[in-house]
């Protein structure tokens, strides 16, 4: 505090810094003024709830203690308010400890479910999307019709598809079980086992998510110069080798983006699990977001626990995205 190491003559830190800020403001005030509305809107809509949520995860906030004041109507028509003696308390890391040790909720079950769910969905989204995109990238009759048809799942609201698929998987009236019995396989009680139930949800979500991947990859395919394929053909590459050495590397920028996006979206894909399995059997197919929802809106509404789920989900995704980026970097991808 007492010694200031001066970097050189005429370089006093205080005034010089203030001068620079001043100069920046002077010179760029117009730019600052232009970004201000965006900053405000983002602050109100994103940052404030985010920090609010993070704060709540360190409290014991729930529906019984969410008021700061308790107000009673007085005879004169006014209100008489006193501070709530039981209002939410700061509890430190209690929520995190409870969740991670399994004291409350089933965090680890939900995490395993989420990882299986996300991995399976993204894998099939990408591979099926890639296959369809490669097929649709050739010229054949009725190509545009197929393209439109394959985009339909995307155009239907997710919950509508979810109900439709739930009905298809219905153990007694569903089309899938009747098809199975037609080929001589015993009908499956889909929603009575953890993994068959999860399977139904994954099939539904794959059906929903493939169009996006297909369209994105189709765009990527069309950006690969045709003469690369011709050069590979001249170099003697077979169709498979051309796919390996021209198509896949050419798609890498698109693939890396859509896989990251797909992972984040699927990780947080609420409606399919909620409407198709509803957690059946007995909560064994819940994923983290549906768990957070149930904590917040079912039974005793435990907002702080839901917020804790939220913070954990956010931090996992942030870590994932950072690692993903690093891996891509090491492969020489500019990203």
């Amino acid at each position: 505090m007492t010694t200031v190491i001066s970097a050189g003559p005429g370089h006093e830190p205080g005034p010089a810094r203030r001068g620079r800020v001043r100069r920046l403001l002077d010179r760029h005030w117009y730019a600052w003024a232009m970004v201000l509305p965006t900053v405000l809107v983002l602050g109100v809509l994103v940052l404030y709830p985010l920090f609010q949520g993070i704060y709540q995860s360190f409290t014991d906030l729930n529906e019984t203690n969410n008021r700061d004041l308790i107000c009673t109507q007085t005879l004169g028509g006014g209100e008489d308010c006193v501070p709530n003696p039981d209002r939410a308390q700061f509890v430190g890391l209690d929520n995190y400890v409870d969740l991670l040790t399994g004291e409350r909720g089933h965090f680890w079950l939900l995490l395993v479910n989420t990882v299986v769910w996300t991995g399976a969905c993204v894998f099939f989204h990408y591979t099926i999307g890639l296959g369809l995109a490669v097929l649709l990238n050739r010229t054949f009759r009725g190509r545009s019709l197929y393209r439109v048809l394959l985009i339909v799942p995307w155009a239907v609201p997710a919950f509508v598809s979810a109900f439709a698929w739930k009905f298809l998987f219905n153990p007694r009236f569903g089309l899938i079980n009747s098809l199975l019995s037609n080929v001589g396989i015993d009908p499956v009680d889909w929603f009575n086992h953890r993994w068959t139930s999860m399977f139904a949800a994954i099939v539904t979500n794959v059906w929903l998510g493939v169009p996006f991947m297909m369209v994105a990859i189709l765009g990527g395919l069309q950006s690969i110069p045709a003469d690369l394929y011709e050069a590979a053909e001249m170099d003697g590459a077979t169709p498979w080798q051309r796919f390996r050495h021209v198509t896949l590397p050419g798609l890498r920028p698109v693939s890396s983006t859509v896989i990251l996006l797909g992972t984040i979206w699927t990780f947080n894909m609420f409606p399919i699990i909620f409407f198709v399995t509803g957690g059946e059997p007995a909560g064994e197919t819940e994923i983290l977001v549906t768990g957070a929802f149930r904590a917040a809106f079912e039974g005793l509404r435990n907002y702080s626990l839901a917020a804790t789920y939220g913070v954990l989900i956010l931090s996992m995704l942030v870590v994932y995205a950072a690692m993903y980026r690093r891996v891509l970097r090491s492969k020489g991808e500019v990203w």
Partner: protein
Amino acid sequence: MSTPVVFDAATRVYPGSTTPAVDSLDLEVRAGEFLVLVGPSGCGKSTSLRMLAGLEDVTSGAIRIGERDVTHLRPKDRDIAMVFQSYALYPHLTVGENMGFALKIAGLSKAEITARVTDAAKVLDLEPYLDRKPKALSGGQRQRVAMGRAIVREPQVFLMDEPLSNLDAKLRVSTRTQIAALQRRLGITTVYVTHDQVEAMTMGDRVAVLKDGILQQVAAPLELYDKPANAFVAGFIGSPAMNLGTFRVEDGAAVIGEARVPLPRTATAALTESEVVLGFRPEALEMVAGYAPDAFAVEVLVAEELGSEAFLYGTLEGASLRDPQLVAKVAPRSVPPKGSRVHFRILPDRMHVFSPATGEALPTA
């Protein structure tokens, strides 16, 4: 060791089009020869080359490489290498991997691939860049990688489609001599496509001129220059271009302005109309001081003085040329001023006579 290539009435009609892009092309490329395909844009040069490469189906006719009929073979079975105009380098592979890709596909051993790639890199001055990605190279270096990718394969035939068009003018000049020298050294039969007639004249052993999918003439560069088979070739080859014009014929002489230019008897005998197309290169014009019966007057519009030579651009009085301007090569450092009126005559043995109906050259001797 080198192999000839034969186009035998090869025709390509693109689906959905009624006129052929290449119309029954008959062309023989001799073993070890550097043949240049040249012509204006859209004349079917790339299509011809791609037919030979196997990238484009042959609608009718045949293509042979050496003894083999390759008309329906796939590109990889033809033993040819191609340099693309865009270079088509694999962006995710290094320079070395790009050059070795075909060898790797062909299943050569690692040691063999490395040896061949290093050899090619040495020839092309690419050794310092072998580990770089194409993105990190200049245009000229990329061009050399594309060449390297072709030469490591030691194919029977090289194909190049305008490989220099992405380079700047100066680099183009130096690269074109390098490519020509490299081809002479390797002795591999080469078909080279360009729309630049200077490239064609300087690089080719022989030059094939195409127009609208039809082969106009194949000949050594100088023969093409001196004895064009028709008015199109005459006007296409040479820079500045040959002066071409249609003139009336009276008593065995062409009427150019007030001048009467006698035509060779063989030409007039072959002429069926009362008009003739005359062609004369800028250097076939001689300035005459006074009056001469075969000299015509020209009004000077622009004089281009280049130091070692000079060109006059002017309008021919009393006659019309295809190109409204007439170009004449004159002695440098004593160029008549703009706006002056000078007389020229055509050196009789340097005149080209073409039929106005067919454009074919008429015999002059």
